[in-house]
């Protein structure tokens, strides 16, 4: 049973792991970043999606290759090759960062359902209880169908993008001609787009789901195609979110801080249905994230630490697993409801920790993928290694930028 559930987590039988990963990558935080970017700077940030896609493909291809060749997850490999200490701190960091992500998902759910006039005091507790029950008590088939359906709803963004009636020649210019601005907010948002697309937990998720599928080396080409398609899909969705906000909110100077505000602001400009579509897709992305992130986190941590795991186990059989999973959902949803809870602070901390973790995850991944004992003939070719080190270095420098820009205002405020 436990394995079935683990597979549910990666619901792979119909879609490939790469495409699924792509969908979950555009979670509440991602959608917020794209909406804000579109509303604030119009089409001019669209070009950043191209280097982002390249970096995403380079990183995820390596991670997927490791999954196929070793049949093990990334947390497994890190534990087996770098020992307890590195693994423990990495898992601790992942736990805190992912807790922040879970809170962001519940916040996204609350905000998007408020558009439909539902109080967060009803939506969040019911949502959390439903997720917990669905995963621990529900039948595998039901959940798989729910999740597959949820993946389809992402197309809502593409529809909203078209309905917002963008000027396509401007869109093409913004995408293909890189522009630069000295505006610190512009720089921050362009970095944030990369930061929200390439996250540490995504790499763990992708490799585990590929390993879980039990793909053989001979099937590696299919896996690569799947991953690359997924990377493009992620950024196509991101593209349309930016377009939708850029076409409607930007010319009228409407500034937003949250994705749900975008949905509300869209209604008078692009029509009620575009707004509904946008709001529904946001609720859906948040819910999908809230289902996957806690479950995935509990799995990696327990796998790395060698603790008993599985959602069908009781608190006695798998205490660490059940406590981590339950804590993330319960605490993650309670924080949303407490008035005056330091939500912003928590999100900041989560993005800083993610930024701190990412270099380690990427460097570990790169040295693992080049370890002949593990990868055999599937290590990086020399030329590819130059590209991947360059990409990883660039990502690290940019995420360092995120940390500095996130922390600086907080420090200056003191």
């Amino acid at each position, binding site marked *: 049973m436990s*394995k*079935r559930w683990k597979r549910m987590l990666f619901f792979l039988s119909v879609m490939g792991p790469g495409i699924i990963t792509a969908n979950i990558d555009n979670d509440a935080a991602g959608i917020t970043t794209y909406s804000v970017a579109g509303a604030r700077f119009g089409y001019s940030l669209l070009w950043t999606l191209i280097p982002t896609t390249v970096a995403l493909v380079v990183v995820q291809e390596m991670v997927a290759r490791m999954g196929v060749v*070793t*049949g093990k997850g990334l947390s497994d490999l890190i534990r087996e090759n770098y*020992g*307890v200490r590195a693994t423990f701190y990495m898992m601790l960091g992942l736990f805190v960062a992912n807790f922040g992500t879970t809170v962001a998902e519940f916040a996204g759910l609350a905000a998007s359902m408020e558009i439909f006039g539902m109080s967060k005091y009803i939506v969040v507790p019911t949502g959390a209880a439903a997720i917990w029950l669905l995963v621990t008590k529900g039948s595998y088939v039901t959940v798989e169908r729910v999740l597959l359906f949820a993946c389809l709803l992402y197309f809502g963004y593409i529809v909203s993008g078209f309905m917002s009636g963008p000027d396509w020649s401007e869109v093409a210019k913004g995408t293909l001609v890189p522009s630069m601005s000295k505006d610190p907010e512009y720089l921050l948002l362009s970095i944030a787009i990369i930061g929200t697309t390439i996250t540490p937990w995504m790499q763990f998720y992708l490799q585990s789901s590929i390993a*879980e599928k*039990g793909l053989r080396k001979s099937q590696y080409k299919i896996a690569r195609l799947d991953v690359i398609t997924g990377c493009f899909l992620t950024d196509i969705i991101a593209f349309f979110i930016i377009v939708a906000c850029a076409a409607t909110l930007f010319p009228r100077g409407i500034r937003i801080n949250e994705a749900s505000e975008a949905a509300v602001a869209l209604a008078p400009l692009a029509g009620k249905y575009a707004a509904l579509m946008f709001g529904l897709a946001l609720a859906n992305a948040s819910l999908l994230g809230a289902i996957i992130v806690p479950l995935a986190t509990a799995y990696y941590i327990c796998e790395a630490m060698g603790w008993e795991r599985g959602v069908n186990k009781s608190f006695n059989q798998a205490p660490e697993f059940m406590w981590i999973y339950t804590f993330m959902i319960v605490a993650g949803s309670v924080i949303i409801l407490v008035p005056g809870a330091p939500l912003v602070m928590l999100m900041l901390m989560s993005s800083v920790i993610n930024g701190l973790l990412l270099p380690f995850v990427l460097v570990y991944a790169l040295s693992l993928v080049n370890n002949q004992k593990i990868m055999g003939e599937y290590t990086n070719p020399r030329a590819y290694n130059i590209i991947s080190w360059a990409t990883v270095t660039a990502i690290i420098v940019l995420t360092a930028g995120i940390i500095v820009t996130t922390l600086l205002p907080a420090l200056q405020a003191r």
Partner: protein
Amino acid sequence: MPLFGELFISEILGKPILDPAGDELGTIKDVVLVKGEPLPKLDALIISRRKDSFRIPWESMNLFNKRIISTTQDLKNAAPYDMDGEEDLLALRDILDKQIVDANGAKVVRVNDIKLEGYRTDAVLTAVDVGMRGILRRMGLERKGESLLKFFRVKLPSHLISWNYMQPIQPKLSTIGLTVSRQMVEELHPADLADLLSQVSPVEGLEFIQNLDPETAAEAISELEIDTQATIIKDMSAEAAAGIIEEMSPDAAADLINELPSDLASELLKQIEDEDAEDIQELLGHESDTAGGLMTTEYISYPPGMTVAEAMLRFKKDAPEIESVYYVYIIDEEERLVGVLSLKDMLLSESATTLGSIMETNIKSVRPEADEMEVAAVISKYDLFALPVVDCDTCLIGIITVDDILDLLLPKQARKKRRSV
């Protein structure tokens, strides 16, 4: 030099090792373990000095405890060691942090630390630490963790598993003879084995299966989901695969073969003993969700004229080969099913009576093309343990046992089949 008391590998890794003059020879990098009686023992230390590695044999140890480790050897005559080339079993490289099967608890755990104890003049490996204490010790936080928990009045639990109960997954570890644990693993229930298999990577799972004897492997594989069974078999040599399929019950084997690509299937059928292959081929003709697809061709059938005494003698010869026996079927010369007799009724009858006189003639049976739900309904309605399948001349061609249909009768959540290796 013997080891007094006990110590953990993590307490000596990275520690300096002193030469007779008291100078630092290098730091301990790894530990070579070899097979010993009754437990694996420490054979040598691998030390690193700048970028080179050397092997310091256990015999040359002067002091060996968690504070001071010294050797009678000096650097001049230390043997260089190639970390990549040697086939030794190394504690850090090959055991620490790896997954291992705890045969006692029937679960997969990770090795956090290794415990050594003095035994005569050797240091032997007695247990592995799979608990929180081991993790904290590796991180150098054991004392702190202990005092923190003391504050909450909780004791930091030790979770040690005796080496006797461990079963390595990778064959590399099996260079240490593990007769005890191997036996323990084979005594596990096949369902538990399948559960273990589902927690390790496909490569490890395959190696694990190949290390089992074919009979145990066949039972464990039968517990997995059908597509997972096929994946495992595809990765095996045809010979090994055929050996395992032979040991499976014919209905399970037929289901599995049905799932394989046709060229592999026919190759395997050629390798399988003729008698078993015939049984399987017969079952392959039926759709998997009909009575014919569910049935097995292994059953006990005797003529009505046989006496109970004769039948009991024959039964002792025939039954061991068969997966499960609940009834004796009575068939005439044309193999037509004329009666059925429960084992209880047979055992309780006078030995001189004939089977024909005590058999039940009101027989419930199904045809091979009957739908699986119909089979489930009949079994459930008449409280049967097994249901005979007959062809158009009422000739007995197979039986369906209740365990083959149980999954249909249970609610979905209670089904037990596992996916993946």
